[in-house]
């Protein structure tokens, strides 16, 4: 491809990916007059009021970020604690079992989990799990199992079997082998899995929507949707844009910092799964 054509395509790609976000950024700093005449020349064009509104609201916006952070971190830890031993067991079991389990996991990973929300809601009601942030980590960890087990077992399989045999000859039991030899060696795969699970839990909507009602406990996606649902016709777009920007910053930072882990997680899932 010739360089000018390529340059044009790159510009197109980046404006397509970032354009809608940049418009939100622009909106978030615009006064209400500027909002309804985005291309006209007016005096009072810029303001910080939307950010002030969002940050001093009740509850203040950072509350939702903290809630999402709690749910995301909790789900990630729980997922890894359960998926790592399972992934190891699958790697070391006989061929047919591995095949069957793997197929089932792929089907589960494909499943549009939104269809599960009603049954999960009934569970939450009967066990009084609604309005508990950490309770959400249970369904999230469960829904993350297929992906986590597939990624981690692929990593375990890549380790040379001699390594584990040597550790066994040294007299290390199963737990010590996992703890001191195998788990440290699959750290990159664990990191990829962790970041993907965290993103899923941070972004999950239908279950959080039905499990949480207390407005100080909402996770970010539910809080944003609630602003939208407050009225179909008069969404406070300026404040909403400010909320979008604030809510996006942690994720954008995460993507830019952990880009390599995310890419290797998604692609090794594709190549080996």
């Amino acid at each position, binding site marked *: 491809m010739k360089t000018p054509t390529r340059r044009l395509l790159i510009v197109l790609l980046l404006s397509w990916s970032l354009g809608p976000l940049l418009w939100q950024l622009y909106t978030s700093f615009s006064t209400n007059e500027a909002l309804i005449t985005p*291309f006209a020349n007016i005096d009072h064009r810029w303001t910080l009021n939307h950010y002030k509104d969002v940050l001093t609201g009740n509850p203040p916006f950072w509350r939702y970020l903290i809630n999402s952070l709690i749910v995301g971190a909790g789900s990630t830890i729980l997922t890894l604690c359960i998926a790592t031993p399972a992934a190891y067991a699958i790697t070391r079991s006989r061929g047919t079992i591995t095949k069957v389990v793997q197929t089932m996991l792929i089907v589960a990973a494909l499943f549009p989990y*939104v269809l599960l929300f009603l049954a999960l809601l009934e569970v939450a009601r009967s066990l009084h799990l609604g309005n508990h942030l950490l309770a959400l980590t*249970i369904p999230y960890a469960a829904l993350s199992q297929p992906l986590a087990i597939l990624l981690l077992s692929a990593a375990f399989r890549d380790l040379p079997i001699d390594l584990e045999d040597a550790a066994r000859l040294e007299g290390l039991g199963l737990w010590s082998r996992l703890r001191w030899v195998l788990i440290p060696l699959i750290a990159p795969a664990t990191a990829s899995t962790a970041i993907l699970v965290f993103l899923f839990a941070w972004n999950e909507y239908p279950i959080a929507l039905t499990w949480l009602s207390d407005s100080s406990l909402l996770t970010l996606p539910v809080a944003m949707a609630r602003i939208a649902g407050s009225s179909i016709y008069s*969404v406070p777009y300026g404040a909403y844009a400010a909320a979008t920007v604030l809510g996006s910053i942690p994720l954008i930072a995460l993507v830019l910092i952990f880009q390599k882990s995310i890419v290797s997680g998604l692609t*090794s899932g594709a190549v080996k799964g």
Partner: protein
Amino acid sequence: MLLLLVPAAILLALVFVAPMLHYVWLSAHANSVLTGLVPIPNQGANWIRLVSDQRFWQDAGQTLRFTVVSVSLEVLLALAIALLLDQRWRGRGAARALTLIPWALPTTVMALGWRWIFNTPYGPLNQTASLLGVAPLNILSNPAITWMATVLADVWKTTPFAALILLAGLQTIPTDLYEALRLEGASQRTCFLRITLPLLKPYIALALLFRLAQAFGVFDLVQVMTGGGPASSTESLALYAYINAMRFLDFGYSATVMIGSFILLLLLCLISWSFLIRLQHRTGRV
């Protein structure tokens, strides 16, 4: 050893298997505000209602339309993006990270962002139109076109995922294959058709299947962006099931809608799967 599997197996059974069994049971019962939320067996009345429920079939058609159009656009666009990101140029790593951003954001966040972009008359699209002297278009209140706006928002968000899978596929193709074919004097187009596309097929199939299942379950986007409107023209099956449960408080029927949607999705996957297999046979590659 298998003991290590037990926690994961219990969790998976609880969250995937038990709900489906529960739905099967629930779909055989009337369980709504009318019954005081007490399940009463109703001899398949839910299923009879489902078969003749126009709204269910309308939503099924709309969900299918949304799925087919947005997944095809996504995979085509993702292929173009993957080819671009696979070439060597300065700043490629940064561009890869930046194109991932839409995928990483919560759907609900940008769903409302899109509502603002499509706003009549203040959104940037309609403002640009009025600058050009074109009459504003009621994008989000015209049942004939609103669904296209939801497709656009979905393509924007999920293309990076498909592009990454295809990029992973591109990177597994050894470069000497291209060099060998080019030595025979083959053009870039021939290389693409004879090496890239055939070797990429498993990855395209994977991206297609993954996206097909996810798009068919579309919920967050339409619930926040359009609420299923205007005139239910963007309502998806998942949203209809949600409305039945949470607004009409008819849990028995909601469960029936969910199983119905699930069966339709299975059919869709089987059809596309057999189509993909036939495509592979025709071009003589496995």
